[in-house]
């Protein structure tokens, strides 16, 4: 079973993209389940996603990569045993760290007979608000970009050329290895490409040694 993460700061268009990509994958014959981890115990996204006829589960009470990793693993195991999706798409809250989420997802292998495969980690960047975000919540945005395999510059229909180029330069500086795609959730530009990425490509499983080395290089820790 494949697990795909769609990360990004609040308002970057995660939920809209997640719904459209899920519908595209359903059309391609996949059985899709969605897990959302909103802030606090009152969740708004799961209701919205379900209004599109998609299968959604909400997890609340903390961050799914650490604090409630057990609940996350259990939810994956229960979905596997009952709904039997071949792809689970996760919309983490703004604080989840992708490698932590990979590790938490793999805990589900201890609960049921499932093998987790990871799709490339996707992070959305809102091109129209890039300067504002880098001023206010730089560290959070940088981390989400650093941990991504693919960074989507979203809202290109509304952004200026200058904003798009600024976003691209910033992403390359933070994560030179990331693949960059221009998308527009509103106009569904790039939708099929994102579905292809989730459908056909994989990202490595959690490896503590690799992640520690990454941390040391990126944050100067250790």
């Amino acid at each position, binding site marked *: 079973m494949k697990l795909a993460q769609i990360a990004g700061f609040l308002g970057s268009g995660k939920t809209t993209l997640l719904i459209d990509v899920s519908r595209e994958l359903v059309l391609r014959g996949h059985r899709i389940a969605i897990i959302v981890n909103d802030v*606090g115990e009152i969740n*708004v996204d799961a209701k919205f996603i379900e209004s599109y006829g998609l299968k959604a589960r909400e997890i609340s009470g903390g961050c799914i990569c650490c604090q409630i990793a057990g609940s996350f693993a259990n939810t994956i195991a229960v979905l596997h045993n009952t709904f039997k999706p071949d792809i689970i798409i996760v919309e983490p809250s*703004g604080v989840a760290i992708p490698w932590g989420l990979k590790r938490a997802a793999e805990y589900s292998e201890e609960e049921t007979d499932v093998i987790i495969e990871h799709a490339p980690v996707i992070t959305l960047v809102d091109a129209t608000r890039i300067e504002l975000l880098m001023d206010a919540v730089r560290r959070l945005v940088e981390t989400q970009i650093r941990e991504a395999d693919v960074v989507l510059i979203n809202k290109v229909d509304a952004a200026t050329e200058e904003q798009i180029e600024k976003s691209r330069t910033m992403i390359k500086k933070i994560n030179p290895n990331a693949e960059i795609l221009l998308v527009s959730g509103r106009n569904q530009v790039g939708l099929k490409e994102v579905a292809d990425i989730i459908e056909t490509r994989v990202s490595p499983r959690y490896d503590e040694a690799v992640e520690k080395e990454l941390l040391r290089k990126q944050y100067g820790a250790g």
Partner: protein
Amino acid sequence: MEDDDELHLELHRAADELGKYAAKMHVHDPQSFTPDKAKRFMDNLLNAVAKECFKDGADLIGHIKAFVTAPTGTLMGSLVDQKVGVQLTSTLENGKFEEAEVTLHVIVHGIWDDKVRDATRRAIKKVIKEHDLELEVLKDHFDTEKSIEHHLKK
């Protein structure tokens, strides 16, 4: 794992620079909602919340969104950028309804949860009055720093 924990704590704290408030409410309209009236209510509510939060010191919207569940369908509203305005997605069918459930989520940068709660409650009160509605808060939530508690050394 100490380095990981420190990084994780820092990220949670970065996220907790965002003030958060969520509420689940029951709304009653004695004159009945039409789809257009529900949309106007949603637009006014989200803009009023943004205005009150900025008045109290917020400098960036994370997101302000609400989901209305009515007998005739659903309505989602989202405000991220005031220049762009409220984005609405509706499945409301033609026809009137008196009762609806509204879930509201507010995350802004620059003020803490208690201020977001107070600003949001002021905005709700104002918009409810303007639209002649009756409202009951069924459940609400705000918890500054609760999400990083598990990382703090006792």
